[in-house]
């Protein structure tokens, strides 16, 4: 009886706390990653970046959010109203759902489920559908071209990404993210990235995962969906005010999710690189390093052409990831691990 009662009171509380924590974490990060992006872009171009609003421009995201919130949400004539309104909501959902299973430290995860990795990828695809819906429902030629591009791009990059993830699942033998992290305990040479004795192509596997992550989150140099010089703002062209703002935040939320996934799968999650003092701080450090590298890549490389993007996936990434998959499975059979 008391047990049942404690479950009744504890579970909703846990749900509420996790929900609020994840939503605020994603919201805060999405807002401040915009600041990081702008500051980073500026520094890569030897400019100071935002400086006026608050110290070092730190209040800039808040000012931007206030501006976006105060603007009118225009629903243009001829758009599919339901889908047009639904798309911004759908685009944010997968990042929030994915972080629910993310192990931030040994005990800090909203839900520690056995098929966490599967869940993240199952929800991750919603992101693509949301952008496609946004583009389709806008009844705008740029938006529709963008929607078509998003679909073909994400279909192309989902395949090598999943092949890489299957390789990782074969090595770790689990889809539970916390167990994947625990399998990488004890010094940075145990991280999946450096486990070359399991698969000599491990760093290349990580590189493929990273490239696919950039493509899946529609980041430069693969930002075909937004390609501002070709498609105005792509699928977001007709969105105004916070409708656009949510798409913008979702981009950063998805980067956050992709970076944490890369951290968990390849960089040992919350494991310390020296085998001691593991915890949240290491997870955040590694994750933000990857986030920074995403900004770094964006301001280094120009946008690829669309056929170049598809060629890269179908002709290079998929064959290599298939090869690593076969190599890993062969090595796992031969080697006593």
């Amino acid at each position: 009886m008391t047990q049942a009662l404690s479950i009744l009171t504890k579970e909703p509380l846990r749900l509420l706390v996790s929900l609020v924590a994840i939503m605020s974490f994603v919201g805060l990060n999405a807002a401040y990653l915009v600041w990081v992006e702008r500051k980073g872009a500026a520094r890569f171009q030897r400019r100071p970046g935002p400086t006026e609003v608050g110290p070092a421009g730190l209040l800039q995201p808040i000012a931007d959010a206030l501006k976006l919130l105060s603007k009118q949400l225009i629903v243009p004539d001829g758009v599919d109203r339901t889908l047009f309104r639904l798309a911004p909501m759908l685009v944010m959902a997968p990042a929030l759902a994915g972080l629910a299973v993310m192990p931030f430290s040994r005990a800090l995860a909203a839900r520690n489920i056995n098929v966490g990795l599967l869940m993240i990828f199952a929800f991750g695809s919603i992101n693509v559908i949301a952008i496609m819906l946004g583009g389709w429902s806008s009844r705008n030629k740029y938006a529709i071209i963008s929607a078509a591009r998003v679909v073909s791009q994400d279909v192309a990059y989902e395949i090598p990404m999943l092949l890489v993830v299957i390789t990782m699942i074969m090595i770790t033998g689990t889809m539970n993210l916390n167990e994947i992290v625990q399998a990488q305990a004890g010094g940075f040479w145990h991280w999946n990235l450096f486990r070359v004795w399991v698969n000599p192509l491990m760093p290349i596997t990580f590189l493929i995962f990273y490239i696919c992550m950039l493509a899946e989150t529609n980041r430069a140099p693969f930002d075909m969906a937004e390609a501002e010089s070709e498609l105005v703002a792509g699928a977001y062209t007709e969105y105004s005010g916070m409708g656009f703002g949510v798409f913008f935040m979702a981009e950063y939320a998805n980067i956050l999710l992709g970076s944490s996934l890369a951290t968990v799968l390849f960089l040992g999650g919350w494991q310390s690189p020296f085998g001691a003092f593991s915890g949240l701080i290491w997870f955040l450090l590694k994750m933000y390093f990857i986030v920074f590298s995403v900004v770094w890549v964006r301001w280094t490389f120009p946008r690829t052409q669309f056929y170049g993007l598809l060629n890269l996936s179908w002709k290079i990434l998929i064959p290599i990831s298939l090869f690593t998959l076969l190599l890993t499975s062969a090595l796992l059979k031969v080697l006593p691990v």
Partner: protein
Amino acid sequence: MKNVIAELYDGLKSLFIGMRITIGQFFQPTVTVRYPYETLKIPARFRGHIELVRDPATGQPKCFVCKLCEKACPSDCITVEGIKPEGARRKTVTSYRLDFTKCSLCGSCVEACRDGAIRFSREYNLASTSKDDFVMDLFQRLEAERRATEKPGSLDGTATGSSLVAVDPTQRAAAGVPAASASAQPKRLETTLEAK
């Protein structure tokens, strides 16, 4: 096959070289001059609109109203008036009207001046909402400058010697100085421009 792998390797290597170059730039100091908080030093031979030169001995304008500048001006934008005080050898200037809307900064007036009584000012911050602000009396301008240096702070603060206060250009309109002043000169910002 061998070529493909070599090409892949070269391509990948070039990506990392690119990343190394950009991160190098990332840690370099920024090059932006944060105007209006900072300004570049104005070159010594900068040509602003003309201004009258004071005789350091007497404190009066050097100009003796020979009107050569008026004649030299191809756009007729200079009008000089003067009087001859009792017992003085030369005339003194009482009004030196410059219609800067017509001036093309050709410098013929400065070349024509025999006594070095006019020179180029170093003023470039001349935005205004009214065209009238650019018909300025350089004599009044000089007088205002003199009064300001004699009694610092007595006039509008911007004209005082070496003030390092940064002034936002947008504050100029708010201060209403160009429109309000009888001499109708754009407010001087020279001191702030030379701050750096």
